[in-house]
């Protein structure tokens, strides 16, 4: 049972991350695929903050499979989007 858990923990998945609006000024790209070995949204964010230092200073929400989630949500989907404040209309 414990080895089974260990295997799951080591299993990395590929996640597509989409960036929008002002966040693309920082990332210089709109989409990328990352290999992610963690469990929660905050772990993914830590990975991204290491990659893009100034991302941490920006205001944004996270969507998983097109639904807004919080930092403690488990990552289950393969598409994560970082959404800065909306400006429709």
């Amino acid at each position, binding site marked *: 049972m414990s080895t089974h858990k260990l295997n799951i923990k080591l299993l990395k998945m590929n996640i597509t991350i989409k960036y929008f609006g002002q966040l693309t000024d920082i990332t210089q790209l709109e989409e990328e695929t990352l290999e992610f070995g963690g469990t929660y949204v905050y772990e993914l964010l830590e990975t991204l903050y290491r990659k893009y230092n100034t991302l941490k200073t920006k205001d944004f929400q996270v969507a998983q499979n*097109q639904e807004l989630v919080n930092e403690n949500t488990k990552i289950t989907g393969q598409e994560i989007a970082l959404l800065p404040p909306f400006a*429709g*209309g």
Partner: protein
Amino acid sequence: MKDKKPMKSVFKEGAITSEFIGNSIYKHQTKTSIGAHNIFLGQVRADDIDGKIVSAIEYTAYEDMANQKFHEIRESAFEKFDLTCMHIYHSLGTVKAGEICLFVFVSSPRRKVVFEALEYIVEAIKADVPVFGKEIFEDESHQWKVNS
């Protein structure tokens, strides 16, 4: 007689023209149970920000999620209000100052309903739909618009 169609994209490339808006009004002449229409038009404002003038807004969106949100707004508006039909169009890409970027059109047998419904829908769009606007200044620098 409710005009509930399956989910469709509300996005249009570029500005929404007055011809398109006029034509939408014309198309409703056959729907004679309607007694009142109400229309909201969002127009790009040439804001003066620290001496620089906004000349256009370049709209982008998380399109799949945005269309889903538009769909939810539509469903909940039909649930809350006695609407005969409802149409939403939002621009993507560049819309110049003075041009129309959002067109919301609601219709009902009675007028009171359309006043309330239109405000509800427009406020929901501003709050819930992942659309982003890059304000382009006349000198080609930019800043990102945030809804207030």
